[in-house]
């Protein structure tokens, strides 16, 4: 380095002492660099915030409509004879459907809404699930036959889309499912209070529905699938991961074998999740013979994926406990295990919890391995019956369900996919909140 690059000490050579009140060129450059660096940092944060806001706005705007649904409210008299006749027929629901349509016609006539449509065409306003819904009610409540019961039938997804602004008269010109003329009726029915948009609990708690009935689809069962998977992951990955890290960090001798294990744990953390999926398929389903599409298999597969994350973060937080604490414990005659469990582990607990929650969050949002073990099943049946069935019966998981909806053709499913993302994020935030509360509880000040 030449002298020219160091102007500072050169100043005395001119015979003048440098003043503290004026900055020399080097200091100026240094300060400018620091200011620039701070500006870069702020810009980076602002860009990040912009993306976050854009993401949240997009999610809420696209997803919020999924939480409301258009319903058609009808009072139907359950006549014993009609029901008997319906149950005696071959296609049982068709007569229920006729009853509902007749009631709708009657209601419209009573409200003075005129139409030249026949009952079947008019019935397109309703979701095709209506007859099944009514029959289920009748079968569950036979004692109410003979009474007049108020039903909230789902409107068809086109009617629902119209009320949410997704469907317009123009878009219905060539739609076989609904015509613009229906929309005029819908407007009048809405005025008469027969059609109404209310909060859609069945989206939050219901099961998925067939391709042609997006209005009926809910994420509830997939949520239960995710919940049972998380139980499996937590129950396996946390104890195994923490025990492995404690052994590796505190007890294991330093030799080639432990080095080898260490390298491999780090490598495992970087393995693409689909690899774990195919491993889960080969081992848990094909070799062990566990049921396909079951949360227990999903949980086991995700456990494999989560373990390295938990091991790495647990080891890092064990390393961060000052060695003086271990020395102090050993110095008063504690055994190695006592020093670890009485002193080191409690101090490392906040870090372990953080790692665990990151691992669980990762597992919760993972889709790829679930595709391979068949946890994208379309679950027409409803809730699992009891805990064992929760683990063993075919189910889906939230991200897989969202993926499933996103790839279906009907735009009404697209809205559900975004709504599902909102629920997934809420689920995650709840988990994070629990972790933060636990951390607070365990954190100790030095």
């Amino acid at each position: 380095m030449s002298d020219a690059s160091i102007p500072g000490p050169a100043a005395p050579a001119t015979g003048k002492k440098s003043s503290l009140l004026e900055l020399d060129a080097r200091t100026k450059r240094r300060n400018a660099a620091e200011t620039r660096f701070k500006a870069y940092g702020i810009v980076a944060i602002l860009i990040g915030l912009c993306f976050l806001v854009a993401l949240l706005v997009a999610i809420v705007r696209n997803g919020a409509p999924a939480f409301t649904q258009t319903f058609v409210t009808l009072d139907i008299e359950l006549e014993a004879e009609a029901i008997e006749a319906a149950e005696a027929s071959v296609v049982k629901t068709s007569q229920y459907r006729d009853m509902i349509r007749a009631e709708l016609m009657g209601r419209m006539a009573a409200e003075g809404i005129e139409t030249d449509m026949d009952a079947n065409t008019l019935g397109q306003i309703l979701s095709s699930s209506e007859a099944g819904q009514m029959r289920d009610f009748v079968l569950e409540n036979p004692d109410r036959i003979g009474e007049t019961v108020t039903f909230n039938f789902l409107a068809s997804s086109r009617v629902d889309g119209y009320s949410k602004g997704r469907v317009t008269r123009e878009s219905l010109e060539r739609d076989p499912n609904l015509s613009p003329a229906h929309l005029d009726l819908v407007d009048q029915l809405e005025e008469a209070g027969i059609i109404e948009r209310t909060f859609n609990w069945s989206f939050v708690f219901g099961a998925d529905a067939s391709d042609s009935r997006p209005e009926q689809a809910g994420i509830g069962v997939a949520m239960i699938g995710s919940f049972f998977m998380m139980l499996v992951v937590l129950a396996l990955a946390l104890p195994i991961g923490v025990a492995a890290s404690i052994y590796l960090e505190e007890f294991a001798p330093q030799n080639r074998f432990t080095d080898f294990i260490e390298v491999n744990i780090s490598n495992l953390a970087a393995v693409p999740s689909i690899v774990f999926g195919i491993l889960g398929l080969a081992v848990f389903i094909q070799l062990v013979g566990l049921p396909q599409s079951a949360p227990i298999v999903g949980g086991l597969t995700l456990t494999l994926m989560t373990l390295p994350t938990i091991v790495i973060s647990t080891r890092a937080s064990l390393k961060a406990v000052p060695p003086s604490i271990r020395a102090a414990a050993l110095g008063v005659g504690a055994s190695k295990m006592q020093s670890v469990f009485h002193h080191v582990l409690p101090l490392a607990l906040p870090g372990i919890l953080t790692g665990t929650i990151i691992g669980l969050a990762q597992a919760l949002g993972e889709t790829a391995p679930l595709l391979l073990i068949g946890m994208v099943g379309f679950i027409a049946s409803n809730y699992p019956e009891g805990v064992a069935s929760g683990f063993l019966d075919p189910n889906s998981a939230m991200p897989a369900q969202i993926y499933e909806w996103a790839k279906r053709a009907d735009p009404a499913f697209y809205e559900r996919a975004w709504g599902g993302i909102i629920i997934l994020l809420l689920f995650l935030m709840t988990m994070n909140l629990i972790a933060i509360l636990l951390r607070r509880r365990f954190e100790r000040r030095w």
Partner: protein
Amino acid sequence: MDDQRLTERSVDQKEIKISAKNVQVYYGETHAIKDVDVEIEDNTVTAFIGPSGCGKSTFLRCLNRMNDTIDIARVEGTILLDGEDIYDKRVDPVQLRAKVGMVFQKPNPFPKSIYDNVAYGPRIHGMAKNRAELDEIVEKSLRRAALWDEAKDRLQAPGTGLSGGQQQRLCIARAVATEPEVLLMDEPCSALDPIATGQVEELIDELRTNYSVVIVTHSMQQAARVSQKTAFFHLGNLVEFDETGKIFTNPEDSRTESYISGRIG
């Protein structure tokens, strides 16, 4: 009995507590301690002095087998505590450390309450049958460490909230709570101010009545003030081991003299 002990002391024939013969310590390839022979007496403060890196702390850590926790450390030779080889295969280092307590250079209280800090040792060794006995041990230990008056009103406050000198005395209380026979102190005052140092030194002198105390120190004045015997280490060798008075006034080895007079070290 007291009279008898006094006479014993006057003729300077104390019992040998620890006897180390031909001790070698290796850190991997490095030969850190070479041929050290030391006899540490009961009810005596023995000081280890010497320049940094001379092996005095390493040797101290041999006495309660704290070097076992370092993978690459290897100890050879014999160290007898009351005539028993502490490196015998049958000896559990955990049991040994209950007998040979240790106080470290930096105060390292557990991040728990003052009470729990002191009670930890007695708890894991099952020394108290009930809460009252434990309370008694805690009080006795804190009194011995001259911390009782300052701490009695805040036993449940965190030990880490005490000042540096108080923390070190808390660590001493923690060490004496397990009723050790030997107390090892690795530069216990290096992180303390002169006032706290004075308190700890006073304490060390009192502890001598019950324990054999071994102290590693960088301060020759401290060695002169608190110890009866002094060992001078240099480059892994034990250069000289004698009465403190003799070491500081009339050392036999020229290296000792140079170190004490400040010419090397």
